[in-house]
């Protein structure tokens, strides 16, 4: 990550908010556990480990074991937060996520740390651009992508109380606060961050503020873009998507993922219920070398790129 990004004032690492909220929950609820794969540091669990050493289950570098162990802990009445780098948690543990958690319906919270291209220069082995696509195909599993620290905290609280397994993407790229402070997170509910009737930009996670900046650029061209926060990829707010299609007539989706994640989910609704022109923006292929911010820009997931896609539809 570049020094320029780290130095930018007013930006936040969602892992910090995540870890603080997890500790707060654990203080109030003895059922809360953390499970990890030698990822205490990368998951920012140092504080949890110090405060609750007996409630941290570190299985070492063994993701299938990690997810299966979490299901067994849930069987005993605990609420495990499984914290691991997103690529390994989701790819290595996929069958355990499907069978041990989703199909067996055990409540655990899968926290995919540093998802998308969060590991930047470490390259595609460490990128997790497929997770949303894989996981949204799994029945019974909720898939949530918070955008900033406040939404991360709210999503963690919601996930802790959910009935069934939840996947949370917890990003490391520093982001500005974009969601209303103190707003609750509700699974299956989209929120409108900017009103507009010319085009809808649906985004979430670390690219949401870029979508808002794109809307500013579009406004200078006289185009009023609605910006929807679709942090809840599954369940999906079908009504909000249908309203967007009806009222704005065009939809751009933006995600730090292959476009069969959020884009695919929205398109499945739109093409069947209210067909309108769409552009699906995401990560098109294994990334070249670069830090996360560079790579997002490189793939057109910057305000200019997003605005250009919206202009294609609405211009």
């Amino acid at each position, binding site marked *: 990550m570049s020094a320029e990004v780290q130095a930018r004032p007013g930006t936040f690492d969602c892992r910090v908010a995540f870890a603080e909220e997890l500790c707060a929950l654990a203080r109030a609820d003895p059922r809360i556990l953390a499970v990890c794969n030698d990822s205490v540091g990368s998951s920012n669990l140092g504080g949890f480990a110090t405060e609750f050493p007996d409630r941290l289950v570190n299985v070492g570098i063994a993701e*299938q074991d990690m997810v299966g*162990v979490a299901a*067994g*802990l849930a*069987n*005993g009445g605990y609420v495990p937060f499984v914290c691991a780098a997103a690529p390994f948690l989701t790819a290595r543990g996929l069958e*355990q996520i499907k069978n041990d958690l989703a199909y067996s319906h*055990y409540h655990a919270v899968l926290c995919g740390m540093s998802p998308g291209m969060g590991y930047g220069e470490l390259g595609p082995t460490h990128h997790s651009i497929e997770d949303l696509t894989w996981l949204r195909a799994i029945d019974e599993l909720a898939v949530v992508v918070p955008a900033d620290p406040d939404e991360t905290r709210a999503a963690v609280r919601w996930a802790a109380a959910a009935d069934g397994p939840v996947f949370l993407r917890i990003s490391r790229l520093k982001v500005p606060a974009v969601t209303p402070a103190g707003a609750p997170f509700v699974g299956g509910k989209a929120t409108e961050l900017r009103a507009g009737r010319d085009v809808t930009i649906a985004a979430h996670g670390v690219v949401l503020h870029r979508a808002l900046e794109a809307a500013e650029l579009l406004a200078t061209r006289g185009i009023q873009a609605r910006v929807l926060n679709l942090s809840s990829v599954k369940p999906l707010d079908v009504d909000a998507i249908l309203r967007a299609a009806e009222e704005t007539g065009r939809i751009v989706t933006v995600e730090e993922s292959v476009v069969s994640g959020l884009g695919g989910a929205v398109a499945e609704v739109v093409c069947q219920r209210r067909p309108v022109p769409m552009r699906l923006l995401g990560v098109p292929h294994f990334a070249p070398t670069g830090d996360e911010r560079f790579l997002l820009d490189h793939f057109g997931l910057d305000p200019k790129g997003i605005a250009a896609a919206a202009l294609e539809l609405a211009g």
Partner: protein
Amino acid sequence: MQGAEVQSTGRDEPVLPLRAAAERNERAAEVAAADPARRPELLARLAADVRASVVRTIGAARFGHVGGDLSVTDILTTLFFGVLRVRPAEPTWPDRDRLVLSKGHCAVSLYSVLALAGFFPREALETFVRPLSPLNGHPNRRKVPGVEANTGALGHGLPFGVGCAVAARLAGSQRRVFVVLGDGELQEGSNWEAAMTAGHRRLGNLTAVVDRNGLQQGARTEATNRLEPLADKWRAFGWEAVEVDGHDHQALLEVFTRPPGERPRCVVARTVKGRGVSFMEDRVEYHHKVPTPEQVRQALAELGR
């Protein structure tokens, strides 16, 4: 604290209801009350009932994994009627011992034992794999009382059981965890991840039971991807390993009721696939070959039914 109730699958899907058939496991109570010297004999009689149920159920459904069902029968019978502290009428009792059938394809043996133990009526076995039956080809914990995990994909039971054992320890509970594994499934690496974790954590409340029948779907384990020296592998992972005759109820009872030690325990139970039916014994094709009606009659006759 126990998650979703059985039969509440959270969707509008018709499921035949399975309600507990008994307040308590009468047969287990009978075994417990018997003179210790007579217990193996009682277990042998129950195992014969289970074998007959397996053959009848698979014969009627024209579907199932009869060979493994018959090799694991004595293990499951001994556990459910001689070892486990469980309550048929309260299947999610928090302090129950946990039994995880990792080799989920041998569901008919498990279903037969659960029905005999009173977790649901024995007549329900007639619905096995019929459309919308709760008794799928692999067990589903939300539809079948007494099932802890939806197994079937191999290599899932042991990590799950490690989690159960860690949970018991965190809760300060004396409950025990038994995971019944196929031998072929030990080729899945996830087992060895879990074996390391259990050894490292010295989970003395965990017992892995390997149904060591020597055959997997396509051939002998040793001709496919060698497992031996199997007991030594477990020892190397920090486990106590014991080898027993997996059809000897006395031996199984003795090893399963030993007090928990300082290490997790692996019981390598030497078994015969298709045990009890002459033409199925140690035959690779009976992994999932279904006997003809005439063969069912012959098998039942051999089992004294």
